[in-house]
């Protein structure tokens, strides 16, 4: 299989699996209310999910943990976000600060 064909197969497989994963909950469980207990848990689900995404994307590079220029950029953006600065501004500050630190030799 040529490399190009390999990539097309990958794209098709990812499209199918992603669609199935996103459809699974609504197809199997949709159309009726969930038990109250499960509902109470779902209300609080975003916090650990998002915290895990933030922590791993800011502090992990593949299987290694560590602090780099991007960690500093994200930390400064965190302060701006907390003070309710607009998201687009925070994102641009995070990227610009990270780029400056890298230009100054920080990994």
């Amino acid at each position, binding site marked *: 299989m040529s*490399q*190009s064909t*390999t*990539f097309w*197969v990958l*794209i098709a*497989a*990812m*499209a199918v*699996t*992603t*669609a199935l*994963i*996103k*459809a*699974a*909950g*609504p*197809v*199997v*469980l*949709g*159309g*009726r209310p*969930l038990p109250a207990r499960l509902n*109470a*848990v779902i209300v*609080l*689900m*975003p*916090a*650990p*999910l*998002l*915290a*895990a*995404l*933030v*922590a*791993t994307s*800011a502090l*992990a590079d593949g*299987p290694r*943990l560590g602090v780099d*220029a*991007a960690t500093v*950029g*994200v930390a400064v*953006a*965190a302060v701006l*976000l907390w003070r309710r600065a607009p*998201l*687009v501004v*925070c*994102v641009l500050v*995070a*990227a610009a*600060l990270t780029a*400056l630190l*890298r230009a100054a030799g920080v990994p």
Partner: protein
Amino acid sequence: MHDSYRRGLRLGAPFSVVSFLLSASFGVVAVEAGLSPLQAVVMSAVVHAGSAQFAAVAIIGGGGGIVPSVAAASMANARFLAMGIALAPSLPGRAHHRGLQGQANVDPSWVLANNGDGTFDRRLLFGATTPQYAGWVLGTLTGALAGDLLGGTERFGLDAIFPTFFLALLLGELRRPASRPLAVVGAVVALALVPFTPAGVPVLAAAATALVGLAGLPPDPTTEEGETA
């Protein structure tokens, strides 16, 4: 046009700018991994799941096969199973119609559409996803074509965008006091698993651990307050 859909468009607009920047860095990385610009754009158009796309391209670009690449993408996407279960009661219609509506599920929209009482505003979800999808595909096109001019994405600090994006969503959740200890547990568990598990597993395990702990506690009255992000 329905009011909720319009409101979703407005709330989703800033996230579409972030989607554009993130997917531009994806476009650069994908072309570096050997995909053609067309393949990078098609992947974004038919998959539309950032962490899964980055994970798959990193593996296939590193010489891995299709099976491990798709497996990593699926693990990165596994959170959508849990998010889809939460969304399910708020999507009406027959099974295939509900499954179709579930395709609009992306992280920012899911958070924005959450009414805070266990229900979701599906029209707001569709509205918020629309500009993000456009930003995602256009950004990929830009990155894939301009990658040669830009060089590495790290030089421009683009790798700081993804965490900042999720942090913005997280801070909205932390205004609810009951969410705070769960966020700490989630972050700690995920970081503890990073060195030992494939991409995507730490995030899913972190959410699961925090929620299993929560299920053992009496219902928290603060969850009744209701809050929209």
